[in-house]
């Protein structure tokens, strides 16, 4: 097991280097000049050259990349061109918002997906089965920017039920936005803030949950149907077990393994920052940070953020694989 983990971590190194190289090449291929952005209307050839020199942009690209890599290995991702702050500080300040949103979305998505998928598998070809198939199709095909805006129009602008954007009402006089607001409020039993934060997270979380809910529902249905056809289910029924127990204890647990993979991967995707949803709801997460950094050609922040997200994704994948072994005693890693 330990050997397996070590091998996986070793394998992650070329993956991460590859990610950073691709990002670096794409950023520079996109054109644009961070020095010119900083100077704006005052940019002229002389000031531009001196600004490029001050920002280290006049060095050869290979030197710039290797320099980034050399520092990244020691955990130093450089400093933002825009804010001058260390990239790790900037990204870490945004992670809590993304993590809270990702968890909220995956909870909603998994709950809806598991329930809908299970009912659809048990009541095969019923109206519910068809409705959930249709729902899943909508879930994967409705673009998030559209769904987000429709939800805002309906629930915020028309009905005034839910807030439009942000993580909490700043007039509640609460904590800085680089915290886990919901968890924070819960720990400190600050119920007004807790409620307010839940109301803020609801629309973006629902918007994001559409895709994972659809995928999880379909996966649960297929996996559960396969399990229901197994011999041990027939045996369980033959023993005279109630259908609830047959589905719940015998079929569902066995069907859960592939579903778990999907949940893990979807969570990884959500942690990667939902650029569009975060932008629509002005949600201060990593996705929005990355998008802003790309627009401003803030090379350091873009590279650093993508690299950190790569680490999270690779790590989560490993965790999912390890979870297999726990759930299914037949799976063994190592020798």
């Amino acid at each position: 097991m330990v050997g397996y983990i070590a091998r996986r971590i070793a394998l992650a190194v070329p993956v991460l280097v590859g990610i950073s190289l691709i990002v670096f090449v794409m950023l520079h291929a996109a054109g644009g000049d961070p020095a010119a952005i900083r100077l704006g209307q005052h940019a002229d050839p002389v000031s531009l050259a001196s600004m490029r020199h001050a920002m280290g942009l006049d060095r050869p690209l290979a030197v710039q990349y290797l320099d980034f890599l050399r520092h990244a290995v020691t955990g130093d991702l450089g400093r933002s061109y825009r804010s001058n702050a260390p990239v790790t500080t900037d990204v870490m300040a945004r992670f809590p918002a993304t993590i809270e949103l990702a968890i909220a979305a995956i909870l909603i998505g998994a709950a809806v997906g598991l329930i809908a998928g299970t009912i659809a598998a048990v009541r095969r070809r019923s109206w519910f089965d068809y409705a959930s198939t249709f729902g899943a199709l909508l879930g994967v095909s409705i673009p998030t920017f559209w769904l987000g805006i429709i939800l805002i129009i309906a629930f915020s602008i028309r009905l005034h039920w839910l807030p439009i954007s942000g993580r909490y009402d700043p007039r509640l006089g609460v904590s800085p936005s680089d915290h886990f607001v919901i968890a924070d409020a819960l720990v400190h039993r600050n119920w007004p803030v807790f409620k307010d934060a839940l109301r803020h997270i609801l629309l973006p979380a629902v918007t994001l949950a559409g895709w994972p809910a659809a995928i999880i529902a379909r996966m649960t249905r297929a996996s559960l149907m396969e399990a229901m056809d197994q011999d041990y289910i027939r045996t369980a029924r033959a023993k005279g077990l109630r259908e609830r127990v047959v589905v719940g204890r015998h079929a569902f647990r066995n069907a859960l393994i592939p579903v778990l993979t999907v949940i893990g991967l979807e969570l990884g995707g959500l942690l990667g920052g939902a650029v569009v949803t975060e932008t629509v709801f002005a949600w201060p997460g990593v996705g929005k940070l990355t998008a802003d950094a790309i627009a401003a050609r803030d090379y350091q922040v873009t590279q650093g953020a993508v690299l950190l997200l790569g680490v999270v994704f690779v790590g989560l994948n490993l965790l999912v694989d390890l979870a297999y072994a726990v759930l299914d005693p037949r799976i063994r890693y190592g020798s």
Partner: protein
Amino acid sequence: MSSSDASSLDRLVDELNAGRLGRRDFLMGAAKLGLSASLAGAIAAAGRQGAGASPNGGRSPVSARLQNGGKTLVVAFPQSTTQLDPGLAGNSGYGDIIPVNENLYEGLTRYKNGTAEIEPALAESWAISKDGLTWVFTIRSGVTFHDGTPLDAKAVETVFNRQLDPNSPLYSSQFGYASIVFAEFASVKATGNLELTVTLKRPITLVAANLAVFAATIPSPTALTTYKNDYSSHAAGTGPFKLDHWTKDVELVYVANDKYWGGRPKLDRVVWQTIATDSLRLSSLQQGSIDVANQLDLKDVGTVSKDSALQLIAGDFWNVQFLAFNQSIAPFDKPEVRQAVEHAINKQNIADAVFYGQYTLGAGPVAPGLLAYDPTLANVYPHDPAKAKSLLSAAGVSKVSFDLYNRTTATWPLIGQLIQADLADVGITANLVSLEDAQFFPQLATGKSAAFLNDWTWDNGDPDNILNALYVGERAKSRLGYANQQVADMITAAEIEPDQNKRKAVYLQVQQQLLADSVSVFLGYPKRALGAAKKVQGLVLSPIGNIVLREVSVS
């Protein structure tokens, strides 16, 4: 449910949310509309919850109590502040620190709020030597920075010299505004505890105006030295508000500076939020989750002024939009072609279609409200497509085609399309090349753009700012292919002219010459509009684009 039923339900929900209707009455009303009890119950429950943080008056006891605990103002703007060091002022070379800056920092001078007039700030007074080369500032006494250190002449010297003196330990060549705000500075010296002496290379008269620019405002030298690159998280100025905390691109929170020399501000906290989308910023204002929306989309000006809960704060903005030619690149090496473009563009159409009338039609480079603005210059090139065509045929050119570089942000794409259509009407083909800012500005710097659409936002409220930056020297030569020694001499001479009337006369002459040389089409001057909740009092529109909150209160 019919549409009339739907609107009845809307009304019921509103009444419930406003607290005018009890839950029981709501359910009864809903039942009459044929709504099931469970659905109506769900709406009622959600509606109640919604009212909790519903801004329209803080109806919920919880938010009402918390709001009374402190007077908080929430201001949303489209851009984000990326840098709290006013010398470095971040992204897009510009604007993002301007709205927030003057609340945290002050310069030796400042603009009298809402005007181009200069008044003393951290300097109580100043004296200018006869030859105009020495300015002696008396620093205001008893002022402390937010980090507790005192303001004295030495502190100002340190802060100014980090942008001027390569031997200063805080020096960096990344201060993009040093050459503007400290133009012609020879030296800065503390000549007494509260006496600062500035000597100049040339006796320019703009020193007081330049020192009011955000990049010349004064952060604590102790904080700069202590925190170096991390200064922004520990920013300390002398302004009416102190930094509380900041999450880049998201939220910047100020709290009142109890020790402010001008008296404690009336607000306790100010929260600056970034909401990039215009419509969301407006909706947030209407919904009440923010108190002030900066930079309204001008099409929404009518909506805000009609809303009884809101107020519109609108006025001039020191900004000019133009289409610039490069005279060294064909076809614009021919003056007739440039003049044809001047006559072909329908500025009124831009004012109506893009700015919904909130636009002053372009005359010369100098914007309304500034010295030497002259609206009659708009008559030099009236909209006249027939004349444009005859100019082209007189010049003997038939097929005119060129690349028009444009930005992808704000209203630029629309303006570009209107101009493209106007030019097509007289037989000129403009190929729009739309670039995001990260590519647009480097493109300009190459000096290889036949024509481009751009604007100028004033740094210091003086005509010299645009004239000297755009129409003199290397930049004019490379970007515009323009080198008129007479114009350059007039602009340079006006810088050292103490008599404002004489300066005005010179700048009028310069503008006439620039139009005669048809260097650019001056399209117009967009206005600026803020929307605010009615309870916000004392907020004034500033033509330089900052939001000054020291006098603002919420009722």
